């Protein structure tokens, strides 16, 4: 597997705390994501992994701390601003647009790239049609890449779970993101599907150079895929480093296996 060629930091999270009433989801967490790497965020259930992703893409606003993305520091932003800045994500429970076909779902991911206004779209002629076709070309490349040609016209509600996850990845890729957040991309999949998904993740990172942050519970996958791993437990960062470093970290072992009192 290719190692990231730069140590340039794409995203820096500094001292972020997030509380829901009395529940402290994140406590003073700092982490960095370097350009071009696959960064895993792991931890036991309720560790604050998904909260971390939600903070990064503006869905939750942290109580304290700051986030620097592409050199711009901010305390909070709106989700559509995050997407405009180049952050895409998939969800733990598939969040596709159920009434639309796989193709339309992925086309929807290109919303930000499409420029023609309401009147042009209404006429669907000239520049508007050309734009639609141009983006269709890009989307077909993604469909090709994810090997979902056969299901492009099928309403996603009818697709099996594994394929839905793939379409969701396609929708995120259609945004041509600089940072791709994957929330448990392999949850509930069988071995074959996990292998496919791992291959896609590595390929995305390899071919497009997309920086990826992923949450995953399958340790074998995490250790194989990621360049660096950060471990959260009860909202606190307990370890950060290469897969090997993390694997042998005493705090991590205790968090996962428990410790005798």
């Amino acid at each position: 597997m290719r190692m990231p060629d730069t140590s340039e930091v794409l995203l820096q999270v500094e001292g972020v705390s997030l509380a829901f009433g009395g529940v402290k989801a994140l406590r003073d967490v700092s982490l960095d994501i370097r350009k071009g790497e696959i960064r895993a965020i792991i931890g036991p259930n309720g560790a604050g992994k998904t909260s971390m992703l939600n903070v990064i893409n503006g869905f939750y606003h942290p109580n304290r701390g700051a986030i620097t993305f592409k050199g711009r520091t901010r305390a909070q932003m709106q989700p559509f601003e995050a997407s405009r800045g180049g952050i895409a994500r998939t969800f733990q429970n598939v969040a596709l647009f159920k009434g639309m076909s796989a193709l339309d779902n992925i086309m929807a991911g290109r919303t930000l790239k499409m420029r023609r206004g309401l009147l042009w779209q209404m006429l669907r002629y000239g520049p508007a049609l050309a734009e639609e076709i141009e983006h269709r070309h890009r989307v077909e490349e993604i469909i090709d890449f994810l090997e979902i040609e056969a299901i492009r016209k099928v309403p996603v509600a009818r697709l099996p779970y594994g394929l839905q996850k793939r379409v969701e990845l396609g929708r995120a890729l259609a945004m041509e993101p600089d940072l791709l957040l994957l929330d448990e991309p392999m949850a509930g999949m069988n071995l074959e599907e996990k292998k496919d998904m791992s291959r896609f993740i590595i390929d995305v990172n390899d071919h497009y150079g997309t920086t990826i942050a992923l949450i995953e519970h399958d340790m074998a996958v995490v250790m194989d895929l990621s360049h660096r791993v950060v471990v959260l437990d009860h909202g606190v960062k307990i370890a950060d480093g290469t897969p090997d470093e993390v694997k042998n970290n005493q705090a991590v072992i205790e968090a996962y296996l428990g410790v005798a009192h």
Partner: protein
Amino acid sequence: MLYREAGQFKTTYAEDMAIFPIRQDRMALAILLGIAFIGVPLLADFDIWPFGSDYLLRAILLPFLILALAAIGVNILVGYCGQISLGSGAFMAIGAYSAYKLGTGVHIPLAWLDFAISIPPLPVLLSILLGGLAAAVVGILFGIPSLRIKGLYLAVATLAAQFFFDWVFLRVSWFTNYAPSGSVSAPTLDFFGLNVGTPIERYMLCLIFVTVFAVLAKNLVRGNLGRQWMAIRDMDIAAELIGIRPLYAKLTAFAVSSFIIGVAGALWAFVYLGSWEPLAFSIERSLQLLFMVIIGGLGSIMGSFIGAAFILILPIMLNLLPTQLGVPLSTETITHLEFIIFGSLICYLLIKEPHGFARLISIGKEKLRLWPFPY
């Protein structure tokens, strides 16, 4: 000829993205348009049954076309963008009264400024379109709450629009040009010097409006904006995270939907009714339109037409059938029977296929492609 797409290869994305990618569908549509645009006028011209009297044109086809247009508008908002609205009747009224005011001349006395705004009567076509525009502006205003409230609560908010405008057009006599009875009459229908008067002319006028708006609406819903609307409908959080602004998506849906409904309202008043009272656009109209969309198929332009046909034409057929067959029944019994049969038909349909006629047809097509094999 079988319904097969074998051998129909698409070599460009433009072909693949056509509204009817299958040749047989295109031919069916061409035949339908041929009948509507050429067949009906020809038959009417030669006074051939069933066009011997004006009844079919005046009482069935005209309201069908106009309400189908309104249903398209409702479908954009409710079916595509998922924002339930009970105020469609009000938006029809806004379209109708704005067009009326513009068509008869607007005079706004501003006494405290010693000044009055006067606009001379505008051409009919312009006032109809501007009536739609007025409805769109009001639609945006009443769409703003949708950013905060959803589902049934939004329905109640749009209900407020319905009752508010019912009241406005009944009580503010400026809108009715101070007519003592509250009833107003449409200006003469002159289009570029052509007077539209006879039923067949009115039919052609509405047909042109409906065809143009149906094509434009279809283009919108299969384009980027339509995908944004459906994304908001299906999963608003995910939509936001891929860069769709809920504000823009929802308000454009309200604007486009209200514009179409407003134009339909203006046509309803000008072309179908001729003279009307605010009662013509009551809550019952809103509900009727909503039922059309639900039964025809949420999120389908074709469904709007089928729904309009079902809601409008079936009761008339049910009403006429006993007399045609010579069954001796009193008019009262027939009316009761009509309600009973029509009501149970709706229940049956919605139980069998909650997604309406449009879904039934697409399932039928899928089966037909494989016929005689089950899969």
